[in-house]
């Protein structure tokens, strides 16, 4: 599997660390809604098909990427810097 890092170019899977599901939202830090926290920390939808997830280019530029990957084919459909995408609102689930 290759992930096209927008900073470094297409790189082998072995350079990346999987950093989890990008579709979940972290509850407000002060929230005491335990169900929301449980969903955030433990529950994963595990879809068969396109999935938004974070990958860190740990062996490269170390940025976190927001990757849309098809879990059936491993086809990477979209890649963006997570931080930039979240800051301009595009990365919000």
């Amino acid at each position, binding site marked *: 599997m290759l992930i096209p890092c927008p900073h470094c170019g297409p790189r082998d899977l072995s350079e990346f660390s999987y950093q989890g599901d990008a579709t979940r939202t972290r509850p407000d830090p002060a929230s005491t809604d335990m169900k929301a*926290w449980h969903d955030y*920390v433990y529950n994963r939808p595990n879809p068969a098909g396109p999935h938004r997830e974070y990958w860190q280019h740990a062996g490269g530029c170390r940025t976190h990427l927001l990757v849309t990957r098809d879990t059936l084919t491993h086809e990477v459909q979209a890649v963006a810097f997570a931080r930039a995408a979240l*800051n301009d609102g595009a990365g919000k689930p």
Partner: protein
Amino acid sequence: MSARRIPTGGLIDRSRTVPFTFDGKAYTGFAGDTLAAALLANGITLIGRSFKYHRPRGVFTAGVDEPNALVTVFKDGLREPNIPATQIELYEGLEAESQNRFPSLDYDINALNQLAGPLFGAGFYYKTFMGPVVGPLKGTGFWMFCEHFIRRAAGLGRAGYDKDPVRYERMNAFCDVLVVGAGPAGLMAAEAAAKAGKRVILAEQEPRTGGTANWSGEAIGGRQAALWAEAAVGRLTAMDNVRLLTRTAVWGYYDGNNLAALERVGDHLAAPPKGAPRHRHWSIRAEKVVLATGSFERPIVFPGNDRPGVMLAGAAERYANEFGVLPGEKIAVFTNNDGAYRAAAALKKAGGAVVAILDVRPEISAAARALAEEAGVVPLLGHAVVGTAGKRLAKVLIQRFDAATGRLSGDVRPVEADCLAVSGGWSPAIHLASQAGRNPAWDDRLNAFLPPQPTQEWTGAGAFTGTMRTAEALSTGRDAGLIAAGKKASRAKLPEVAAPAVEINPAPVFEIKADGKAFVDLQNDVTADDVRLAHREGFLSVEHLKRYTTLGMATDQGKTSNVPGLAIMAGARGLAIPDVGTTRFRPPFSPVSIGSLAAEKHGHFKPDRLTPMHDWHVERGARMMEVGLWHRPMIYGGAGETVEQAYIREAATVRASVGIVDVSTLGKIAVKGPDAAEFLDRVYTNMFSTLAVGKARYGLMLREDGIALDDGTTWRLGEHDFLMTTTTANAGKVMQHLEYFLDVVWPDLKVHLTSVTDQWAGAAVAGPNARKLLEACVTGTAVDNEALPFMGIVHGGIAGAPVMICRLSFSGERAYEVYCGAGHGTHVWEALMEAGEPFGIAPYGMEALGTLRIEKGHVTGAEIDGRTTARDLYLDWMLSKKKPFIGSALMDREGLIDTNRIRLVGVVSLDGQPLGGGAHIVENGSLEELGESIGHITAFCYSPALSKYIGLALVKGGKARHGTRAFVSDALRKRFGPVEIVSHHFFDPEGSRMHG
């Protein structure tokens, strides 16, 4: 003698005689032989004993599909079992041994298993070794008891116990076009793509390129096919943009057109060149792939089809044409297609007598008739083999057979033969395609599975696509090469092929049902009846069939047994073969050495992390230990000192005067930016925004789920400038944790993180005389209690080098961590040592460091083990109530605040004996009768301060057990003894020594 070398012919080098041994006896072969060919040339047809029934077995194929002739090879003092003799190239001094026989191959005691044959059917072990319902051997206990004896009787070769001393390596390669298989189709594809200017890799698993051209006996372009192939290879090797890899099996097809291959670099050499690896793992990224992997001939299943002397027709032809070896003197042929007729003619031409051709079909083509005439025999049409006789094949039993009904009739007649060449049709080698494609499609004409629709960038060529003729191989090969190169298929003239026009499509006959064991899978001793038994017992899916009967498992992965097995299952279920389906081929296509996968990731290629003062430690006689990738001093042993004596001396010196320890390995992260303080408030459980510039604070981090992650001190060097330290082991993990939160959770925070672990050298100076030591050598700043209070930071110089000093203590003594640029590390260290000399300073290692921290009850990774909470470690005073932080939401869950969780305590050995890490704490019992564990020891030492063996432990209830007695129970080290559970703050609980 039956099998023998023929005087001329073959592609072997008859000018070079190669001596080798098999089962201790000396033989010779020729350069270019495989072990199988050389054994046959020496008349040896009995090569091994079978897996379950210990039946005599011989050579069945000539290639990677060999299920039978597995041997053990001894090389470089190592034994490697289960290698097909067909895949071993002869080299001088090759030492091979037959397997699974006792006392000898000829007289094997376990061959008695054959008599018990009916007992050993599918699922035999599962059914027979279910133990009684009660008693010591109940349930699987009985199996475990019997397993020991069964393992000795069943199975294949034995693995060695010695460490593998040879080297393996790994190679990454990139190309425009990867061509798998260098037969006629692959050669055409590679040349077409290379001529179009593409970078081409051509991989061939055999040592010889050319594939079928080496033994088909056909002519291509007006000359012998083998010579045509040789010329084609010559043209390819002359091109700069072609890399030819022989002895390289492409075994895996992964995402992104990434293929894995194993190159056997040194296996065929008596003495590989210095530095050459034994195997090389290739990871090949190809823009396009051409699969020209050919096809596998398959057998017909009939009783006695496993006797030495029975082999595939194509293999017999190959031994004659490629190796100049006649596999028998009196050869019978049994077939359901025309292909075997070519083999018959070739064997006759090589000097063998073809005694019979038995064909299940009522009619054959004119071309087949002509070939039979060449072979000098009139084929018996509508006949089948129903049995064989002889330890080595002596007789073939035949009977009339109706292919339409599968019925046998008439008398059983014997035909004397020492070789039976069988052909049941051809199956394209779709293994790689199946890894990178959809479901394979059944072809009624070929009676085989055709390659699936690709899900990756590959095209097929040659027999792989189901087109079995050489002329088609040339045209599909060239087209595939051109298409892979982005060109259009060509109509230009191709080299002429002279070959008999035989009918390749077989009659759909897979099995002859008659009395006796008829083997489907020769390697696993799975019979046709086993398949039917599995069906009767309800194992209908092919995946279940495979796992229940072991059909298609082990080293050959059912290359010869796959389709016959499916056909028999389909027959039992009354379905068509495609409706039964096929198991999916997974990597690896052929066996892969584990060493090649590990390659440089093990052994001396692992990186070593050394601190700036490393050489100093080593020169001073430090005994080093590995902590992750780091090398750290364990002790600085004096003459005649034991490890225990050394660390006790070192630790005692710290408590009495002063010691120094290298702490450069601590993780260090520069946290900078206007939001740095806010960020730290969110990641640590305690407050950092309130920390004054020039001060440090001890901090604790939790994970989101409320479990402790790491601890360390963070120093505020400026308003927006912090230096965070982490434990040595967790430096990478903490960095990633912080990066994740900054990038993904709080992308709005203006903070930048830099790992600066390697930029700083650190030395901790600890002991009552530590301050005096610094006063003697530090310039530019005062270091008294006023200027440098506990947790204070000052900047100054030592021996001309700038340093940063923070007063903090892991040892519980008055202590200072002195940091300087890594390049000044040894210089500053030596200056500190010199200043400490008047105080009798001792450098101390990990053992003394551990001792001092255990005496103080400080936690490390042994206690922050990914299961403990802050409360478990009595660090709840660090959990701020004024702010949320990572982990604050979930840390108070019921299960995490249960007071009966295992919590930190101290333990004191009451019998004066050492404690052991990982040992259980129990309330009662003995070494023999283990009581219920209430916890375990995480760290232990001899405490010079207390003159006792002590330890830290995680024990149920924690503090509630202070003052009670328990036992340490360590079955592994045979240690059982009384302990007292106490507070983990063994020494100076008020901290007066470090604050003073």
